[in-house]
């Protein structure tokens, strides 16, 4: 165990440890509440289309659940990539939810309500608006940090609430659907998924976001492993003074990191609001903005790790409704499990330190044992 946590695949093993610990904790919690954890965990999988449900409504099936899951997974992965890009440069983008909302709102208003745009053009415009809106908010945060030394956690939270109230105001005044009290649904032409596709006799929703998200994951991986800019961003994150010393323009890199992060968050936003939900609840920030932090940390801030981590967190979030109806535990337990996961994931460094200490002690012991004979002689 200790060897695994210090070996070359340490990040993977510490994430797996976090997952096992979380499942154990959640299992105990479910047991205490008098539920069968195995049934509960299985129903999470059923809710996401990984396992067949007992019965299905008309026109839906396991495949439609699976595609719904992918529709949710895409923005989750993008949002966690947004966190990762900033995190690598030493910044904490806690404002992903706000950037998502800004992008989703602008795209909905500018393209989603435009009935005349043909489908491919509308979708392209939505993506461009998402990237631009998120990127601008992100760059603004980066600029505040670089120019005025404002801690990005505080500024992003303030901007989150400002965006939330501002968009809420416009939705309530101009774009509200009187029945649902949310924004009017956007036109199918602008949505980033194909709806009502018949596959094997069931209705499916095919998200384009999944392609975008996977492409983004590999792009971010490429950025940090193969390019100078990525290296400079990492250098700023590790030690800004040192980076400045060998010629990196730290301020510009900070702004760039936040802008890239914002762009990814904006992409997540359009995929969430114009793919997954199709409507915006006024004055509500998507919980996904915060869940993405769990995903990023669980994936050890690696873009490829984030793909797997996003699947795991999304299973809990997306499968919660079905689990709740089957087992009778409030669906908010999904957020609780995500929170516990985040807690264990953030202990990764400590696990590593402990493991190193255990190995060190073991090494000392074998050395002592090997020198045992000579040691006694010296004492005598």
């Amino acid at each position: 165990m200790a060897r695994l946590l210090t070996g070359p695949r340490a990040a993977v093993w510490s994430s797996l440890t976090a997952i096992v610990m979380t499942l154990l904790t959640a299992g105990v919690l479910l047991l205490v509440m008098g539920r069968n954890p195995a049934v509960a965990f299985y129903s999470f999988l059923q809710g996401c289309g990984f396992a067949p449900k007992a019965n299905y409504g008309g026109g839906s099936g396991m495949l439609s659940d699976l595609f719904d899951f992918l529709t949710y997974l895409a923005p989750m992965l993008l949002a966690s990539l947004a966190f990762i890009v900033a995190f690598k440069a030493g910044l904490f983008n806690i404002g992903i939810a706000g950037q998502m909302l800004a992008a989703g709102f602008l795209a909905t208003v500018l393209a989603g309500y435009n009935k005349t745009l043909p489908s491919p053009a509308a979708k392209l415009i939505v993506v461009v608006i998402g990237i631009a809106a998120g990127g601008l908010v992100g760059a603004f945060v980066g600029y505040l940090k670089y120019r005025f030394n404002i801690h990005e956690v505080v500024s992003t939270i303030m901007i989150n609430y400002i965006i939330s109230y501002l968009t809420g105001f416009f939705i309530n005044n101009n774009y509200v659907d009187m029945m649902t009290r949310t924004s009017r649904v956007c036109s199918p032409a602008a949505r980033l998924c194909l709806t009502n596709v018949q596959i094997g006799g069931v209705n499916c929703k095919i998200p384009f976001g999944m392609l975008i998200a996977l492409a983004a994951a590999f792009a971010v991986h490429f950025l940090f492993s193969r390019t100078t800019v990525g290296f400079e961003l990492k250098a700023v994150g590790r030690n800004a003074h040192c980076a400045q010393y060998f010629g990196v323009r730290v301020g510009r890199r900070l702004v760039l990191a936040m802008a890239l992060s914002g762009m990814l968050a904006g992409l997540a936003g359009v995929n969430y609001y114009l793919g997954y939900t199709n409507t915006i609840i006024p004055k509500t920030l998507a919980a996904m903005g915060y869940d993405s932090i769990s995903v990023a940390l669980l994936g050890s801030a690696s873009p490829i790790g984030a793909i797997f981590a996003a699947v795991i967190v999304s299973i809990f979030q997306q499968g919660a409704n079905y689990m709740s109806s089957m087992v009778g535990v409030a669906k908010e337990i999904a957020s609780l499990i995500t929170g516990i996961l985040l807690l264990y994931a953030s202990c990764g460094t400590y696990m590593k330190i402990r493991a190193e200490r255990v190995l060190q002690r073991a090494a000392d012991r074998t050395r002592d044992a090997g020198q045992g004979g000579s040691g006694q002689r010296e004492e005598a």
Partner: protein
Amino acid sequence: MEKVFTDGLSFAMPLLIMAVGAIYSEKSGVTNLAVEGFQGFGAFIGALIAVLIMPFFPKGSQTVIYIAMAAAAVGAGLYACLHALLCIRFQANQVISGVVINILAVALTTFFTSAANKAITGTSSNKLILDVSARFTVPGLQAIPWIGGFFRKMYPFEIIIMVLVLFFWYLMNKTRYGMMLRACGENPQAVDAAGGDVEKTRWIAVMISGALSGIGGICFAYSLLANFSPSIYLGYGYLAIAAMIFGNWKIGPTALVCLIFGLAKSGGYQLCIAMQLPSSYSDLFLMLPYILTLLLMVFFSAKNHPPKAAGEPWDKGRR
């Protein structure tokens, strides 16, 4: 006009006690972005205890509020141990830890609020309904023109918080423990060399921070919202952190900033009413404290002197 002062003070006081909590933690060298989580968790424990004991008291009894306050302080203080554990013992990144604490607090309280509601009342609501604290008016002082509003319709907790803030100002600036705490945030090696226990001092500071934030949270729940629900997470914890930053980690100036925040919030709200705008416009005025925070930060952030060792885990072996 006087209502601006009345409401402004009742918003500023819980904010101030949270900011004082944040100052304690940061002055001891532990970056504290977890205020939001502490206040929510404290409010949840306080509200839960209040709902549980309410049947044993006559309706509208004020004793419940004080018990809830104590429970909130204890609950949030214990919850803060998690932050201390992560930051001090596990040497985790303190900013990450703060974010973790906040997210976990939202998840924990949301889930257990519905669970508790189901167990106590049998309904699946996500709110713990509380009473509203009684108010009182200070005779004499309330007749002063303009600022008389400060002394009208006060909540009892405002007095409690003022006393607490004075006490904690004294503890920080005039006692041996306070000096050690401040030294831990500037130069922990020196404290260690002088025979002080850095880890213990920081643990206590973080727990104080949690307890004070918890009091702030239950005051919000008992005055502004009259219930506990996940909507308590309005970012007020972050406003408190912002107030601390403008206040340059000093309790006196921080109090002033909190008051400005409070007045901006109530002033905006009253302005909205005075201009007879439709209620949906109130959203625009609710943005005011957040915008003001950003603006103030633009002007004041660069000149700040945060505690030198804040954010760095204490490593005895390092020089």
